[in-house]
């Protein structure tokens, strides 16, 4: 059944692609509507508009950088990889949080594209927001392997954990997260609750908890089982619907919560260590 669903959705994207090819023949430029404000100097918010020429492959990031290079060099924007793997360029495009580099201008199918900073992040300037709180939420869920045998210190011996591909699949999806913050910006709880760790952090709590190399527990943690913790997710699903990497934080959160409620069985297997002795190791 889910196979069929998948096929249908594939078709949908396919047809979207087709459509955009068509509509593009008609359009050779678009209007960018860019949010401008500099918080520190009390500059009041306004929008600037720029005419930008586009081609079939132009992404919103391309368009913004064109405007920055040739129209107004002072646009504040954060970007780096331009291939949807660094997580820098999250912003609200036509009202929805997206990665600028992963959003093709043509797929938006509109002649005016509005770019605004991500909500739920303190504004620094123009499209640039402050990720400090977001990162500290991430840190607060202990996003790392906790295991006596997996030593923190560099120990000069060789050993690997044995983990089957199936066991990898349990957490692999959640580890796609590029920390772009789109989910954090979309979540209705985060919109008002500053102490709620947010979908990204909670999904990472799930990711490390589901890893067979991890023996620690995050379920009793103050940040997770707390009045502002994991229970403040109401499965609004917006996080998963905006995530550009298919992390599906909503899924991770519900699964972790299921374990915590002990409504679902959770006998976690712990991976065993296999020691190796290679020949001429110099370290």
């Amino acid at each position, binding site marked *: 059944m889910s196979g069929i669903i998948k096929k249908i959705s594939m078709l949908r994207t396919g047809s979207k692609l087709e459509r955009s090819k068509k509509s593009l023949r008609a359009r050779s430029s678009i209007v960018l509507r860019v949010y401008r404000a500099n918080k520190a100097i009390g500059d009041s918010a306004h929008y600037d508009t720029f005419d930008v020429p586009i081609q079939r492959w132009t992404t919103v990031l391309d368009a913004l950088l064109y405007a920055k290079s040739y129209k107004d060099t002072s646009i504040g924007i954060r970007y780096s990889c331009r291939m949807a793997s660094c997580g820098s360029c999250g912003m609200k495009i036509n009202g*929805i949080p997206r990665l600028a580099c992963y959003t093709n201008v043509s797929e938006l199918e509109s002649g005016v594209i509005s770019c605004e900073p991500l909500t739920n992040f303190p504004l620094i300037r123009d499209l640039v927001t402050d990720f400090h709180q977001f990162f500290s939420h991430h840190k607060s869920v202990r996003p790392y392997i906790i295991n006596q045998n997996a030593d923190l210190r560099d120990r000069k011996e060789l050993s690997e954990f044995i983990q089957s591909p199936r066991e990898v699949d349990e957490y692999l999806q959640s580890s796609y997260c590029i920390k772009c913050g789109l989910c954090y910006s979309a979540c209705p709880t985060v919109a008002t609750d500053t102490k709620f760790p947010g979908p990204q952090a909670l999904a990472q709590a799930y990711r490390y908890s589901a890893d067979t190399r991890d023996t620690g527990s995050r379920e009793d943690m103050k940040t997770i089982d707390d009045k502002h913790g994991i229970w403040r997710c109401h499965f609004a699903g*917006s996080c998963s619907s905006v995530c550009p990497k298919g992390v599906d934080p909503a899924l991770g959160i519900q699964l972790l919560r299921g374990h915590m409620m002990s409504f679902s069985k959770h006998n976690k297997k712990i991976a065993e260590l296999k020691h190796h002795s290679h020949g001429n190791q110099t370290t």
Partner: protein
Amino acid sequence: MRTSNRRGLFKTAEEDRNNREGLKGWLNPSRYGWERVSYWLQRLTGLFLLIYFIGHIYETSSLTGGAGAWNAMLQFTETPWGHLFLILVIGTSTYHSTNGIRLIFTEAGRGLGRPGRPDYPYDALSLNYRQKSGIWIALILAAVAMFYGGNVLFGGD
């Protein structure tokens, strides 16, 4: 720590809230699909039912005042507006309970599927057809219940 702020009941650190979407964020359910609508409705219906519940307790408290008081109270509710209100109660409680049952399952990690390797275009597993149909069923049941309730209330005796 960043949130240690004791300035008052209604104020928190300016920095924390700068650019937060705030109440407007959750009051607008239109941008992110059906799950967001369901969340919004669950909340609104929950609150609405709480208000009704309090009202209902108050309403029944007139029983203690004898038949006169009770009938006076009935007078007050047995109006077309009162009936409309009751129909709304029927609908919201049906929706809230049905969707609530779905949420109890999902929030215990059931009915979402197993995590796996997502493929482009990364349709989220947790937003699957089972969940969407759950929402639809809750909405349809609510409509049916309201229709039935309307029949009973307005259909005459």
